[in-house]
């Protein structure tokens, strides 16, 4: 049952991801990206990481893709037909395929996990506790980073007043 669910979701994710990088129309890409993110969120749920799944939907689907769509609308003339790919497509496909093959090979043969996986537990409270205790310093740092990114984005995107 779990395996069936995994294969369905994984196939959906990969298919939409392929659409993202191949569709000539960038808006189609963005919409496919939404579905791909949702697929990954499904994988997270399958891995008993419900909180991460929710975060994935909130931030990626709700935040980043919307931001992407805004940027697309502000910049690209969707109607104009241009070359979607640059001239190094063949070699790139070869190399990306090769690296994928190596990674797949390594995943299938190189990973041996000694011992049983622990029983699924309620992860959300434990996660909250970890973020506020062991990992509190990176947690605070990441908030500073987000603040800095926000300010930086505003400065970069703002029109010079002249």
């Amino acid at each position, binding site marked *: 049952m*779990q*395996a069936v669910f*995994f294969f369905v979701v*994984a196939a959906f*994710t*990969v298919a939409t*991801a392929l659409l*993202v*990088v191949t569709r000539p129309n*960038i808006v189609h890409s*963005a919409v496919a*990206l939404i579905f*791909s*993110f949702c697929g*990954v969120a499904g*994988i*997270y749920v399958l*891995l008993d*990481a419900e909180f*991460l799944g929710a*975060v994935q939907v909130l*931030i*990626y689907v709700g935040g*980043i893709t919307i931001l*992407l769509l*805004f*940027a697309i609308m*502000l*910049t*690209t003339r969707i109607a104009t037909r241009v*070359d*979607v790919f*640059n001239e190094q497509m063949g070699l*790139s496909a070869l*190399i990306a395929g090769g*690296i*994928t093959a190596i*990674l*797949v090979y390594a*995943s*299938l043969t190189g*990973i041996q*996990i*000694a*011992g049983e*996986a*622990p029983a699924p537990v309620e*992860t959300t409270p434990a*996660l909250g506790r*970890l*973020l506020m205790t062991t990992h509190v310093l990176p947690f605070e740092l*990441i908030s500073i*980073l*987000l603040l800095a*990114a*926000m300010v930086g*984005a*505003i400065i*970069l*995107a703002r029109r010079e007043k002249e």
Partner: protein
Amino acid sequence: MIPVSYYLVLGAVLFGIGMFGVLTRRNAIAILMAVELMLNAVNVNFIAFSRYLPNSTLDGQVFAIFVIAVAAAEAAVGLAIVLGLYRNFHTVNVDEINLMKW
């Protein structure tokens, strides 16, 4: 329970697709999307290991949260840069922007 390698293979494939996008797309926004795919691939691995490793302490999930936060920051700044590029060059195709060429 299905073996962990299934998730790792999924991560590898997503990563490869993302890398292909980064290497070939001309539109800067499309490149950003592909980068997001690669980050997602990494997160899948993190969470899979966090679930499957015995005595795991959820560190993988915590790390994934940080990755998501950094990705959000990266998207915000990246898109601001794209807007700036568009304003200055009237294009978002990265191969037409080659000020660094000597």
